[in-house]
């Protein structure tokens, strides 16, 4: 006799609405669109820089537009989300064992944040923002 088990299909397009942790995940994944877009912007900038002073200055001019503002704010929001979601899981991917114990996750995560903040401030200072 064969009695078939019942198979429940996973909804292909909407599964991530089923649980808040899936929503958090899919948001994290979507950051790639913005990281990618910004990479493209950098690529264009690099091209402009290579083309000479005028091209570059036109590029910087374009950065001052309202559209650019909107774009940057969106990218910044997702980039920050990417940064936090990336740092928060580092202890999972790279646990550090010291003798009989592991370095507590908070320490590893904290170190990442500390380095990140110092690095960002250094960049801002060297870039002449302050």
């Amino acid at each position, binding site marked *: 006799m064969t009695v078939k088990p019942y198979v429940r299909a996973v909804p292909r397009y909407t599964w991530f609405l089923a649980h808040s942790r899936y929503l958090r995940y899919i948001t994290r994944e979507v950051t790639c*669109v913005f990281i990618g877009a910004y990479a493209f912007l950098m690529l264009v900038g690099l091209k402009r*820089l290579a083309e000479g002073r005028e091209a570059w200055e036109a590029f910087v001019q374009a950065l001052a537009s309202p559209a650019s503002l909107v774009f940057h704010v969106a990218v910044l929001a997702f980039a920050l989300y990417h940064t936090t979601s990336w740092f928060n899981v580092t202890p999972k991917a790279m646990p550090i064992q010291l003798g009989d114990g592991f370095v507590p996750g908070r320490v590893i995560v904290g170190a990442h944040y500390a380095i990140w903040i110092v690095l960002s401030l250094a960049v801002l200072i060297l870039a002449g923002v302050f």
Partner: protein
Amino acid sequence: MAKSDKALVWGLFAAGGTVTAFVTPVLVVLTLLPALGVLPDVLTYDSLRAFADATLGRLAIVAIVVLSLWHAAHRLRITLHDFGVRADYAVAVVVYVAAAVGSLAAGWYALAL
């Protein structure tokens, strides 16, 4: 079963994820400032050229651009799969080719500087 070559793209993805986590936010802030009417010194042609003329500076620029591209490309492939796009092979070809072209372009421009 055979080991997968996904390790290659994943390696680039992971390296890119780390780099972008550290630097993308602050770079975005820099390029956002012009829209607020502030032009940070580094965005003037002369200082950026000076930065890029240093070998290390030039390498940093290329590395950040390239790794950001690969990070985004690989994650986009996964994301599309998560959104129900099942043509994984086609997606993979498109995103990786795009990343590769972008990487070559970045290298080319850097050399042309």
